[in-house]
């Protein structure tokens, strides 16, 4: 709840206005009965019809004031709740932009999406209730009690006597319903989980003839959920009649006492009528207040989930006194006894990796899945920081460099080509906004994307839909390569980025890259041996260690693991050719 209060503080004025408008509403709801009581006591008793008409006019005026108050209330509520939600979302989004891969993986993309979207929505719904009901109740109670006491102290004592009961009732309900609704929520989660498992495991369940077991498992959870729901709903629905019963008893007591007072000329009948109205309204708003308790647990969970993201510490921090590199030209990248272990991992993914890549060189990395290939290259743009050793660019530790300037120099093409909705041009220019038309076309041509772009009806202006469903895997990869090329970076990193290309395009692309990129460092992670045959250096990784390093021919002779990989992919002739 702290979270909500913190954001509400930004809108103090609106909240104040909200509060005032609540008064307007309360005054009308309670003012009309007061006027009517005056009509009875003074108008009817004195038989003064002119007075009655005047009072009628007063009611009309009050109605208009009250309605204006309510409209203002609606305005404030909508303003505040949408503004707070907007702020929360903005802050969350900005926070996420500062996170590193580590936190991103820890939280999970889908969970972050839910938090930014749904949890913020929950907060908005809750705020709407708070700003209307929760503020209205105290105001109604205070105003009606003030009016009650003003009209008759004695009768107000009776009402006062009911207050502890009501408070007790509210507290009991909140105390009891809280845990029950939590239990119900847990049971519901379980229910949904089992059903989801039933759907995803549909074929397996049938193949094993286990649907009866699933039915039993589901039934058990279902019974639990039904029992909790029943408890909760019974509690909630019995609350109202009991509240009204209490109110009715109070009403009887008031009538009884009032009869005596009237008998003794201590009270006028009109006042009594007004009194009953106040009671009715005060109690009713109390009832409404209970909905706050019903909504609180859910909103609280959402607030906690949002808070968890807000409180995350970004793992990769920019160096305090970020050294600017000695020269702008990158001559080499050096891995100096690098070891890396994921924060929640037990075993190091990379162990004692050392190598140097110089400008103009192509270094390829190959190895079985899980050997640490992708992790290794992710250390260069500082997606993660090394656990031991150093990654150096021109003798400067990357951790001492300005992260943004470091990344500016890198063209990183990841395995999963992620494009954004927008035109093809926008996506390529994502690499560098101020690139000229020629540069863009050139990048597209090198990436072997130009031909298919020109075949699209919109050419460079063709729109890519969200998720890039209107492009094939190979087309997506080529666009993401063009996006990296347009930057003209000094370090190229390809993380298995040719995997969705057919062999012919793959070959053409690599030929074009070789011609165009002469002075940069190129690091390729590959699955296919054919992709890396002519690399200046191939690093074979095995369970996080360097199992071999050298050119293709050398490795075939000297590294058994490499031979094994190559043998499974290349034809006999190609292998023989080397020997």
């Amino acid at each position, binding site marked *: 709840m702290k979270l909500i209060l913190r954001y509400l503080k930004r809108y103090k004025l609106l909240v104040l206005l909200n509060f005032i408008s609540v008064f307007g509403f309360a005054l009308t709801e309670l003012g009309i009965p007061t006027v009517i009581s005056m009509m009875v006591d003074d108008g009817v008793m004195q038989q003064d019809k002119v007075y009655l008409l005047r009072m009628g006019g007063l009611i009309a005026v009050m109605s208009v004031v009250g309605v204006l108050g309510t409209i203002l209330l*609606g305005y404030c509520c*909508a303003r505040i709740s949408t503004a707070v939600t907007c702020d929360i979302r903005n802050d969350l*989004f900005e926070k996420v932009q500062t996170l590193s891969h580590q936190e991103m993986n820890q939280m999970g993309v889908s969970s972050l999406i839910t938090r930014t979207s749904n949890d913020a929505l929950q907060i908005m719904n809750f705020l709407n209730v708070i700003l209307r009901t929760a503020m209205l109740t105290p105001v109604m109670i205070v105003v009606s009690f003030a009016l009650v006491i003003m009209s008759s102290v004695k009768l107000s004592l009776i009402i006062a006597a009911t207050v502890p009961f009501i408070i007790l009732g509210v507290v009991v309900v909140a105390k009891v319903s809280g845990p029950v609704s939590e239990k119900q929520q847990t049971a519901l989660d379980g229910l949904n989980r089992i*059903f989801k498992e039933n759907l995803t495991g549909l074929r397996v369940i049938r193949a094993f003839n286990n649907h009866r077991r699933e039915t039993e498992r*589901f039934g058990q959870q279902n019974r639990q959920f039904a029992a909790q729901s029943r408890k909760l709903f019974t509690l909630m629905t019995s609350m109202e009649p009991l509240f009204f019963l209490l109110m009715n008893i109070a009403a009887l007591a008031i009538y009884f006492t009032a009869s005596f007072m009237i008998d003794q000329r201590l009270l006028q009948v009109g006042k009594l009528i007004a009194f009953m109205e106040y009671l009715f309204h005060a109690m009713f708003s109390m009832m409404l207040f209970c909905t706050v308790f019903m909504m609180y647990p859910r909103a609280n969970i959402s607030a906690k989930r949002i808070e968890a993201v807000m409180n995350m510490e970004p793992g990769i921090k920019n160096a305090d006194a970020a050294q600017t590199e000695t020269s702008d030209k990158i001559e080499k990248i050096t891995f100096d006894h690098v070891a890396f272990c994921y924060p929640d991992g037990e075993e190091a993914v990379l162990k004692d990796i050392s190598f140097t890549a110089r400008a103009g060189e192509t270094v390829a990395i190959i190895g079985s899945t899980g050997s640490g290939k992708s992790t290794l290259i992710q250390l260069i743009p500082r997606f993660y920081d090394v656990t031991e050793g150093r990654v150096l660019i021109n003798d400067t530790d990357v951790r001492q460099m300005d992260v943004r300037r470091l990344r500016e120099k890198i063209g990183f093409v990841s395995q999963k080509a992620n494009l954004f909705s927008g035109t093809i041009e926008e996506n390529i220019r994502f690499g560098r906004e101020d690139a000229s038309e020629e540069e863009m076309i050139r990048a597209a041509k090198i990436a072997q994307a130009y031909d298919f772009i020109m075949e699209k009806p919109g050419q460079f202006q063709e729109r890519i839909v969200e998720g890039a469903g209107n492009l094939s895997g190979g087309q997506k990869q080529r666009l993401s390569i063009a996006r990296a090329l347009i930057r003209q970076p000094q370090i190229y990193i390809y993380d298995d980025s040719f995997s969705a290309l057919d062999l012919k395009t793959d070959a053409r692309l690599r030929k074009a890259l070789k011609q165009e990129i002469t002075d940069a460092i190129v690091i390729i992670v590959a699955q296919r041996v054919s992709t890396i045959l002519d690399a200046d250096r191939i690093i074979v990784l095995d369970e996080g260690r360097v199992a071999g390093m050298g050119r293709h021919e050398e490795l075939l002779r000297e590294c058994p693991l490499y031979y094994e990989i190559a043998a499974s992919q290349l034809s006999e002739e190609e292998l023989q050719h080397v020997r």
Partner: protein
Amino acid sequence: MSVKKNEKKIQKNNKRIGYCLRCLAGFLKPYKAGLILGILMIVVANATFALNPIVEGQMTTQLYKDGEAILSGEPGAHVHFDVILGVMGTLVIIYIIKTVSQLITAVFLTKVLQQTMYDIRNALQQKIHRLPVRYFDDHAFGDVLSVVTNDVDTLGNALQQTMQRVIGAVLTFIFVISMMFYINGVLACMALVIIPLTVIVTKFFVTRTQKLFDTQQNTLGELNGTITEMYSGFNEIILYNKQEIAVDKFHDVNGRMRKTSFRAQFASSLISPCISLITYLAIGCVAVTGCIFVIDGVMPLGNLQAFIRYIWQINDPLSQISQLSAQVQSAFAAMGRIFTLLDEEEEEQVGRVAVRPEDIRGRVTFEHVSFGYDDHLLMKDVSFEAKPGQTVALVGATGAGKTTLMNLLLRFYDVKGGAIKIDGIDIRDMNREELRQLFSLVLQDTWLFKGSIYDNIHYGKLNARKDEVIHASKMANVHHFIKTLTGSYDFEINEESSNISQGEKQLLTIARAILKDPRIIILDEATSSVDTRIEKMLQEAMNTIMSNRTSFVIAHRLSTVRNADMILVIDDGDIVEQGTHEELLAKKGVYEKLYHSGMETENGTENRPLSLEKDEQITYTCV
């Protein structure tokens, strides 16, 4: 024309509503007694609630009369306590009846409704397992899941809350209006002006706010799209230093979201005050006229008080009309989806020939099998025979339809022509359960559920003893691994089964398959995310499970393919070549090309081996 269209629409709508209600009635039937009692009690509670003001009014009238007498100083004037006490007695009875009937409703109706929802959820769960698998080809998992999670929830809330409120509102209307006319016809007519005015106001706002809500919904879609895209494209954003641009873009959408949802919320919040204004003004008019009536002696004061109370009472349901109608609509939409799903055609479950697993040796024959979805034939004329104990490797590009064979064997789908026979018995003559008794299935997309390791393996044979489970895990090479876990066999696999590795998951599913000890096994060879150590273990485990059983392997490894007794090459859903490795190489057909394009021993996450992107021009020449 448009009128006709509208009529048709309404007719269709009415038909659907009727259908939904009939289905719902079916589920409520077992709890008829409780339901009727509950609804009866709602009627009683509302009737007493409506009586309340007029009875209280009698007391006011009496007090007013007596008060007037006392004030005017009539001799011996006093409050008639006997009358007052009499009225109070009546009130006590009314209060008790009301409270008791409400409590009965709360207890019994809740019980009935929750029991009904329980039945509906169970019915849905059981339905899932009786639907033909092809149903799920046309319906996304998410949609089916949402029926159970969201629609059932919506229906439950609607029955629990909306139904009572709607019934209550209707009853209040009837009772209150009759009470109003009973008290005074002129005032009643005055008060009733509220109703048409409210309807007009509500209609006016609802049609206008609808557009705003649509815009809000669209912007929300856009916002969610942006969030998803930016979070998934996180890598690119930090690599290209686009954080500021991403934030700007998000601010823009989020700002629009704020504006549109503010407009929608504010506009819809106007309905209630406008209706209140009508009510307030009506109360004012009634009060003035009523007071004049009282002065003229046309009606007693207590009745005026009661009348005003009635106006308040009627205001409540009126100001909720738009809200309630929206809830009712969504409830019917939800019901429509629930009952449509429950009405889907099921697989037939009977068999003509009884099969005992012990008697089956595992000879699988395809005789001129053809198969396809809808009218389009994929598999045209396939015949082959797998002898007991033989290994059949299935080879082909991703999406070529390698799983089709599995679907046909397990009768997830039925053949269009020809027959599949096991030991000479047409599988369509077998009971589905007995047929599936013969198979074990190891899928690459491992399916484990939240629960202990033991339960997950035990799943293969529910009546297995503990030592059998342990034996199976030893056979599957996974026993040792399990022993290293905290709690060993009691180790809990979490909901995403992310606390064990992919390779270990595969080993567990193999253990599960071994435990079942089937005649025939269908294996989907692992391709991805497995380290070399586990890869070896998997290979061994697979060999164990394949020995002495007829095996169908969706193969990715060269060694598996080479050693198979028969290779089936699948392309575009059809078996295009069959034979042994050597025979097929000699044929110089599809297999030969596939073979040379590179079967890999290790793979990326995307099923690369033997899988050629369909959308790319396929060329097999190596550079």
